[in-house]
């Protein structure tokens, strides 16, 4: 009898599954409904769209970062769940299509894109070398070329290793990931400036890129946890992905909850403390009217609750607890992006619109529809990974 761990589950996502089609259906319905909304209120449509677009793209960016970090550190803990992130990253290339409405809505979303507004505003004139329409569009294309290329390569090589079992591919993946992380760090920073910071073009914060990375990465772990639960709910990988692997996802979730709190609080405290008008105004708008309820619930639901719950070892073992906290954090993640973008368009308080929901469902359906569409084409686990045995035979006390 060999003690070598073996996988007994089927590794193929069922090809006849109705999941991708159902998601595409939901996505199409959401997008059509939002498109109708566009004719009623274009400003609202674009603003809602930007929030949802950032939400899902952020998850893709975080997945890309996770895959590359996994390769560069030669990790074994997450081999079993790596394919999930690889598929998210591989879809970044197609996902670029969903950027188009943001580019079409540039005049509705970005005050700096109006030439007459720039003429009347000395500050915007100073920024116009960076904040101008052609350069903005060029940058967006560049970001998606970088992300699409990296995601495509990382997925392709990993899938190739499934077939050939050639471990030399891991060396190739490491060599790709090292400069990849550098490129991703730079591109996601400027993307966050473009999408979210320049909505309020007067405001600036050197930390903003790190802050965007922190919110996306914290929200990425709940997506992974819920995805694993969903697959196992479908009867897939039930014996392969074990409690100890889910525990690790929970530990990452906890770690990045603290990291998020650290970054978000540092940014707030430094601006609050110095109290310079050009900086505090951003927080001032977000702490008045009904916006302040979102601000305070960030503190509670994005930090205090997950922090206190996930600190407990037992909680990271209980699926119901993990699932609940994951949903809470995803909801508040949406609320945070909403809270960053929307006060520019509705200064005095939350002005909820049905398009906030339809754009979210539309993009979400597409995002996960594309995911399952690609996911079912290959094995759900990198079966020939050199670290797979380590991952399968993992125990708590390593």
């Amino acid at each position, binding site marked *: 009898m060999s*003690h070598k761990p073996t996988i007994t589950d089927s590794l193929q996502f069922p090809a006849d599954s109705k999941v991708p089609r159902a998601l595409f259906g939901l996505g199409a319905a959401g997008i059509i409904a939002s498109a109708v909304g566009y004719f009623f209120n274009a400003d609202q449509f674009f603003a809602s769209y930007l929030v949802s677009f950032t939400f899902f793209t952020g998850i893709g960016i975080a997945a890309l970062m996770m895959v590359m970090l996994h390769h560069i550190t*030669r990790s074994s*803990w997450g081999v079993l769940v790596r394919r999930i992130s690889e598929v998210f990253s591989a879809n970044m290339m197609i996902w670029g299509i969903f950027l188009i409405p943001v580019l079409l809505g540039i005049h509705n979303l970005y005050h700096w894109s109006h030439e007459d507004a720039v003429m009347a505003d*000395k*500050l915007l004139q*100073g*920024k116009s070398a*960076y904040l101008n329409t052609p350069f903005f569009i060029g940058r967006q294309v560049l970001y998606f070329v970088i992300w699409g290329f990296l995601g495509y390569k990382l997925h392709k*090589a990993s899938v*190739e290793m499934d077939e*050939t079992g*050639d*471990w*030399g*591919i*891991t*060396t*190739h993946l490491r*060599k790709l990931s*090292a400069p990849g992380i*550098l490129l991703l*760090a*730079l591109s996601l*920073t400027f993307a966050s400036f473009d999408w979210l910071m320049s909505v309020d073009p007067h405001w*600036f*914060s*050197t*930390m*903003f*890129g*790190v802050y965007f990375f922190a919110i996306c990465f914290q929200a990425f772990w709940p997506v992974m946890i819920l995805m694993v639960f969903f697959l196992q709910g479908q009867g897939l990988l039930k014996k392969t992905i074990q409690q100890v692997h889910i525990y690790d996802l929970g530990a990452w979730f906890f770690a990045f909850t*603290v990291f998020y709190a*650290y*970054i978000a609080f*540092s*940014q707030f*405290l*430094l*601006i609050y*403390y*110095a109290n*310079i008008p*050009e900086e505090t105004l951003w927080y001032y708008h977000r702490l008045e009217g009904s916006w302040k309820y979102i601000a305070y619930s960030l503190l509670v639901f994005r930090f205090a609750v997950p922090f206190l719950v996930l600190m407990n070892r037992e909680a990271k073992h209980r699926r119901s607890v993990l699932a609940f906290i994951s949903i809470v954090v995803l909801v508040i993640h949406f609320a945070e992006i909403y809270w960053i973008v929307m006060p520019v368009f509705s200064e005095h308080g939350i002005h909820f619109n049905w398009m906030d929901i339809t754009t979210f469902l539309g993009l979400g359906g597409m995002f996960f529809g594309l995911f399952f569409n690609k996911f079912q084409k290959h094995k759900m686990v990198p079966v020939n990974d*050199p670290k797979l045995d380590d991952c399968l035979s993992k125990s708590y006390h*390593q």
Partner: protein
Amino acid sequence: MSKYEYVKEPALVKGDHDFSSLTRLVTDINLRPTPKAWYVAMIGANTLLFVMIAAIGYLIWEGTGIWGLTNPVGWGWAIINFVWWVGIGHAGTLISAILFLFRQDWRTAINRFAEAMTIFAVMCAGVFPAIHVGRIWVIYWVFPIPNQMQMWPNFNSPLLWDVFAVSTYFTVSLLFWYVGLVPDLATIRDRATSKIRKICYGIFSLGWTGSNRHWWNYEKAYMILAGLATPLVLSVHTIVSFDFAVSMIPGWHTTIFPPYFVAGAIFSGFAMVLTLMLVARKIYGMKDIMTNDHMEKMNIIILVTGSMVGFAYMMEFFIAWYSGVEYEKAIFMLRATGPYAWAYWTMMTCNVLSPQFFWFKKLRRSVGFTFFISIVVNIGMWFERFVITVTSLANDYLPSSWDYYSPTIWDVLTYVGTFGLFFTMFLLFLRFLPMVALAEIKAVTPQADPHNYDEETKEFIPPKVEVPEPQAQKV
């Protein structure tokens, strides 16, 4: 087939070592008679320590006027040296706590060493805020001690948060270090032949016998301390960065300071660990434990953190321009082209450019080159703090008060003297304590993970029984 070769992960301990040869390799250093070279080094270190004591003595006698501080440069070398030393300490905690939580087994070769460095670096750092206060005899006023005058420190000030952050950091680091030392101290106790050694190591090993229950408690305690130390890696240098960033001074007030300072601290700390490690492993023949693979991994961390620092410099510059704030723009232009441009470009070369050489595997694995870069990085990180502190203050809002800041001989002597304190402590550590976490390094050798099963022949192999060494062995 792809064009790349699979690179196997190297073994953590090189050479043909078993448990007892590792024990001898590490503890013999402490049990042998003191080598002459150690005394020579100690005399050098003590001389510098005396220089520090003399410089501080004169400072207390005469006051901070002996330093190069002027108006508007009210913060000079003292804060630069404080931040520099406290930053160096961070590598030790990162290695001991964060890499432990990440289950990075390679840390075991260097963690003891790096933690010792942390503690001594924080001691050197602590000197500066303590002596700069003017009236050192009332230094206890920095603590919120209830008193009949109802005098309290300013709780709104990050300088007070520093007092709490650094003292917590020092305490936790010391505890963490000591807990890790207990099993190894017991090993030395068991091997010691002289009575005094037996008693001293015996007291500090707390009656450790290596029983199952002892190990169980030990691992629990170690895990909890690692959990406590991890946020401290971030919090200490974050609060140090707050010393600058909560102000309204251009070049200081920028939100990226907290993570940027933490990355810089780890950057300089790893460089310092490398400088010390490369020398120590040669002198003490530790190349089997502190291998070139360890050096390569540390060089990669230097590359990563160095690039993070470079990223932060770039962000500061970009946002200074993007913000449209005249003062921010002016101060950054002055940094690159003004009177302190030489310091700025030294910083840029040392911190941003020099670690980029580590993209090349050959250079990452070259001992001489690594040693050189490790020193360059620490020079660069000193200049970073110089650039931040001095350039923002010297050219303030009022051009009429602009002046060129230069230090006096007393600034220099105090700084150089802290190396005396550092090396005195470090030499004592090398002489009397095991410089490698012996129990931990044994746990990552293949012998510690016996399977008693041959994959190929499918046969059971009986475990080798190791005969313990006689206690009163001559060394």
